[in-house]
């Protein structure tokens, strides 16, 4: 059973570009504790925009977004983004070692006391080990980069994870590891997820609830297959 209090909630949220083009229109959705909500939708329907609104990387044109019942405008964006972490579709690692990339979320001289333990645990969680720490980011495969990027996002211990097509460009083996890691995170760390994807199999294995994003609105569906059958994804 899930806690009924939504951790992250969108209430009548709209988003339009400066030229007036509507992307999201009065969209409402809620993500509860330990929930993994999968959003299905075609490219260009505003899935990434929706996630960026959640961590306030973009500003909604209308509506309210609540985190633990508090309007996100009342929370510093810098604090909010550590609580609601967004991971983009393409893993972005900076030049340098894996270790330096994992330390990016922390400011200089503000490292947590259990940093070593955190790094070790996180690497294990994403199916890697400490031997990767000294490897250069350009030496990694796409799958390894994606897992390091996920580890870096998790090292801040967020409450909500916003994942933008995390399975893109990954082979089956890496997708399997990714799903295993994400499921483990939900169970162990009580993290909630809002995941965007357009792959049926990935959605089925990861999601508890499924939403379809179409014409700027979301619609809840029982099983992802119906979205592919009815909505032509």
């Amino acid at each position, binding site marked *: 059973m899930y806690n009924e209090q939504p951790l992250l909630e969108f209430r009548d949220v709209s988003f339009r570009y400066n030229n007036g083009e509507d992307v999201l229109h009065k969209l409402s959705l809620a993500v509860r504790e330990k929930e993994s909500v999968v959003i299905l939708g075609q490219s260009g329907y505003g899935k990434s925009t929706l996630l960026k609104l959640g*961590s306030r990387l973009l500003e909604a044109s209308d509506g309210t977004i609540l985190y633990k019942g508090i309007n996100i405008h009342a929370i510093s964006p810098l604090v909010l983004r550590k609580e609601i972490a967004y991971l983009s579709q393409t893993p*972005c690692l900076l030049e340098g070692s894996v270790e330096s990339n994992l330390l990016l979320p922390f400011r200089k001289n503000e490292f947590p006391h259990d940093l070593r333990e955190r790094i070790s645990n996180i690497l294990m969680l994403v199916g890697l080990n400490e031997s990767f720490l000294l490897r250069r980011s350009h030496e990694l495969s796409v799958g390894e980069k994606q897992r390091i990027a996920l580890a870096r996002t998790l090292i801040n211990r967020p409450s909500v994870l916003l994942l933008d097509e995390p399975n893109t460009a990954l082979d089956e083996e890496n997708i399997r590891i990714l799903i295993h890691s994400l499921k483990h995170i939900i169970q162990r760390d009580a993290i909630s997820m809002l995941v965007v994807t357009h792959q049926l199999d990935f959605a089925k294995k990861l999601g508890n609830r499924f939403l379809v994003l179409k014409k700027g609105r979301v619609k809840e569906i029982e099983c992802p297959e119906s979205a592919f059958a009815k909505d032509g994804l």
Partner: protein
Amino acid sequence: MPRIGICKGWVMNNAIDIPWFQLGLCSVFVMMLIVISLYESLRLEKTILIGSFRAAVQLILVGFLIKIIFDYKQWYVVMPILFVMIVVASQTLIKWLKNPVKGMYRYALISVSLASTFSLFFVFSLVVRIPVWYDPQYLIPVAGMIIANGMNGAALAGERYKSEIEIRLPEIEMLLSLGHDSRTASRKPRQQALNASLIPTLNSMMVMGIVHLPGMMTGQIIAGSTPVTAVKYQIVIILSIAATVAIASWVFLSLLEKKYFTPHHQIRYELITSGKRGE
């Protein structure tokens, strides 16, 4: 009564005057430019002709005007001239930027005037110590060099900053999403932009006196200043130019940061890219 240092040279006591006809012989250089342009189909002939004509006419007019200003020597004449120089430099800076956005002219004006005022104040109140603070014979030529270089530096920095942000958009988004502020997230573009603005000046400093004999110093020596005096002035000028470029660029970039990012540490995509945000 002789003036201090450089002034002896500036009144051209010892320089050989160039008769107008002989000056006209320099049009041979213009013809050479045109020949190369025609031979290589550069289609620059019109620009070369207009540019050469404008340079000559503008300089001749300024020559006469400066003589009047130097003779007149009043602060209420000198100050508006400096103001016009800064305004024109700021307008030129904006023209050099691709797709300048609203408010940028104000930023250019602030950065160029701040940096130039600081350098001019420092040079003339502490280093050269001119007896009359608004003496146009010193203030106008040196201000011209300082303002022009500050303008060039800030323009280079501004252009590079925007393109670096555009190229590094995923990296900046990633740093913002990890909870960093926009200042930290845009550090790399800022570093690259400052490098781009400072490198021409620093390179010029490296070869100064060996490959590059600066125009001002050469002019002073030809005009009769002692080489040591001319060299001292040149050191003052090149160092103050370097500082002006750095200050103008840094201030301009800091102001641009407020333009390209919101107070909530969000990228203003519409000013960086073609206007599309996210997906």
